[in-house]
C-alpha cells in the first residue's frame, strides 16, 4: 500500500524558514504574473491609441496597398504603409541573408570545434557584440559604411538597404549565434560519440548528425534574429536613408516601420489621426514580432518533443 503523502502545510512548523518560504513564493509569483500583465497592458495601450483610426480613417487597401505615406499632406493626408513595410522587409531580409551564414558558422565552431579557452573567449566576445548600443551601430552605418558603399559601388548615396541590412545583420548575428550554439549544445553527446566510433570525422558528424538533430533550434535562432531585425529602430533609422521608397535594388534608400514611428511620433498631436496611424503601425509591428517569437518558441518545443 502506498503511504499517504504528508500534508505539507499541516505538518509545517511556523518558524522563520516557513515565513521566508511563503514570502519568497509570493514574490516570485508576482514576478511571473507581472510578465503577463505587462504584455497584455502594452498590447491594450497600443491598440487603444490606434483603435479609432482603424474604424475611421483606415482603409486596408490603402494601408497595405499604397506606398504613399503622407500623413501631413493637407487637406488629404494618405496613410499607405506599403513602402514602410517593404523597407522593413527588405532591410530585415538582407540582414538575415548576411547574418545566417556567419552565425551558423560561428555557432558550429564554438559548439563543435573550439575547445577550452578559445571557446570561452569567443563566447564572451559574441555576447559583448550583442551589448553594443544600437545608436553606435547606426553611427558606424552613417560614418563608415556610407562612404565605403559610395566608393566601392559608385552610387550617389550610401545610406540604403545594403547599408542598413549589413548593420542589422551584424546586430542580429550575436543573438543568432548564441541561440544556435545552445541548440547545438542540446544535442546529446552520445550521438557524436556514436558517429565518431563508426569512423566519421568531426565535420561529417556535424553535418550528418548534429545539424539535423538541432534543426528546430537552429530555425528558432534564425527566427529570433529576424524578430530582432524587425524591431530594431535607431540603427535602421540612421543607416537606411529614411526616405519613402519601394526598393528595387539594394542601393535604394528606404524607410522602416520602426523608424517612421520614432521619427514622427514626437511631432504629432496626441490623439490626432496621424498619431493614431502611427499606433496602427505599432500594432502591425507588434503582431509580426509576436508571431515570429511564437513560431520560434513552437520550433524549440518541437525539439523537446522529438
Amino acid at each position, binding site marked *: 500500500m502506498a503511504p499517504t503523502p504528508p500534508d505539507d502545510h499541516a505538518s509545517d512548523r511556523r518558524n522563520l524558514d516557513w515565513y521566508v518560504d511563503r514570502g519568497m513564493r509570493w514574490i516570485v509569483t508576482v514576478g511571473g504574473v507581472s510578465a503577463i500583465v505587462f504584455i497584455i497592458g502594452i498590447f491594450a495601450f497600443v491598440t487603444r491609441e490606434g483603435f479609432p483610426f482603424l474604424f475611421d480613417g483606415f482603409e486596408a487597401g490603402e494601408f497595405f496597398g499604397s506606398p504613399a505615406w503622407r500623413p501631413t499632406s493637407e487637406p488629404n493626408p494618405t496613410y499607405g504603409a506599403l513602402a514602410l513595410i517593404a523597407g522593413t522587409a527588405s532591410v530585415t531580409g538582407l540582414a538575415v541573408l548576411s547574418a545566417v551564414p556567419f552565425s551558423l558558422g560561428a555557432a558550429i565552431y564554438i559548439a563543435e570545434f573550439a*575547445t577550452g579557452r578559445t571557446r570561452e573567449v569567443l563566447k564572451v566576445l559574441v555576447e559583448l557584440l550583442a551589448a553594443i548600443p544600437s545608436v553606435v551601430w547606426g553611427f558606424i552605418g552613417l560614418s563608415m559604411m556610407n562612404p565605403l558603399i559610395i566608393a566601392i559601388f559608385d552610387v550617389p548615396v550610401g545610406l540604403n538597404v545594403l547599408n542598413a541590412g549589413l548593420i542589422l545583420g551584424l546586430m542580429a548575428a550575436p543573438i543568432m549565434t548564441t541561440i544556435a550554439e545552445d541548440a547545438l549544445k542540446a544535442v546529446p553527446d*552520445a*550521438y*557524436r*560519440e*556514436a*558517429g*565518431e*566510433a*563508426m*569512423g*566519421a*570525422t568531426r565535420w*561529417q558528424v556535424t553535418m*550528418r*548528425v548534429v545539424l*539535423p*538533430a538541432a534543426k528546430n533550434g537552429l530555425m528558432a535562432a534564425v527566427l529570433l534574429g529576424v524578430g530582432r531585425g524587425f524591431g530594431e529602430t535607431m540603427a535602421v533609422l540612421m543607416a537606411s536613408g529614411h526616405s519613402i521608397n519601394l526598393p528595387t535594388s539594394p542601393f535604394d534608400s528606404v524607410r522602416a516601420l520602426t523608424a517612421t514611428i520614432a521619427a514622427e511620433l514626437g511631432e504629432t498631436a496626441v490623439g490626432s489621426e496621424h498619431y493614431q496611424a502611427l499606433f496602427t503601425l505599432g500594432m502591425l509591428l507588434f503582431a509580426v514580432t509576436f508571431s515570429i517569437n511564437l513560431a520560434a518558441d513552437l520550433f524549440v518545443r518541437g525539439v523537446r518533443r*522529438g
Partner: protein
Amino acid sequence: MADPAAVQTQAFNLWYGTFQALYDVDITVAAGRITSLIGPSGCGKSTLLRSINRITERLGYVRTTGSIEVYGHPIIGPAVSLVQVRKQIGMVFQRPNPLPLSIRENVLFGWKLHNEGPKATRAQEDEIVEQALRTVLLWDETKDRLAHTATGLSLEQQQKLCIARLLPVKPRLLLMDEPCSALDPKGTEAVEELIWTLRGAYTILLVTHNMAQARRASDDCAFMLMGRLVEHRSTNELFVAPEDPRTGDYIEGRYG
C-alpha cells in the same frame, strides 16, 4: 605464420590527465571467439575496450604508451588512419545510441561514410539494410517502418540496431561495452542470443559487469583489477579453477 590474434596489446598504459587507468596491459584476444572482460567498477575494463578503437581520444586529455595491434596491424601511430581503424572495429555502447535518423539511415550511416565506390542504387541499399537487420534478428519487426525514427524503438531493438549498423562496413572486430546493462531481462536474453549468433563471423570483445553473463556468453574471459590484467583464460577454466586468488575472490562475490 599462424593466424594473427584479433587484438594484441603490449605494455599498454593509459592516463586520464594524471590518473593512470591502465598499467602494462598485455592481452591477446583470439580471433573468431567471444572474450569477456570482467572486473569491479573502475578496474579499467571499459577503458581498455575503448582504447581499441581509440574512442578514448575524444576526451582530449588521454595519454598512452605501449602498443595495440588489431589483426597484426598497429592502430596507434602517425601512419595509421583513424577512420580505417574505426571502420574495421565496431563499437556498441552501454546505452543504446541510435542516431536521431530513420531506422534505414541508421543502418546505412557507417556504410555511406566508408563507401568509396559509386553511389549505390536504392535497391542495393535496400539489400544492405535487409541483410544487416536480418542478421540482428530485427528485420521482421522493423521491415514495415524503416522510415520511422530509430529513437522510437524499444531499448532492446535500439541496441540490436546499433549492432546492425556496424555490419554493412564488414568490421572484423566488435567491441561491446556492457551492451545489455540498460536492458530488461528479456532484452538482455535476446541481445545475448544475438551476440552468440555473431560468434565466429566476428571477433567479439565484451565488457560486462555481470558474471553470469560472462559465463554464459563468452569463450574466453579476462579478469582485470585496478588497471591491471590479472588472469585471462577460457571462461570455463577461469570460473571453475581460477589461478589467481584475487580472481577467485571476485567471482565468488567477495568484492566488486
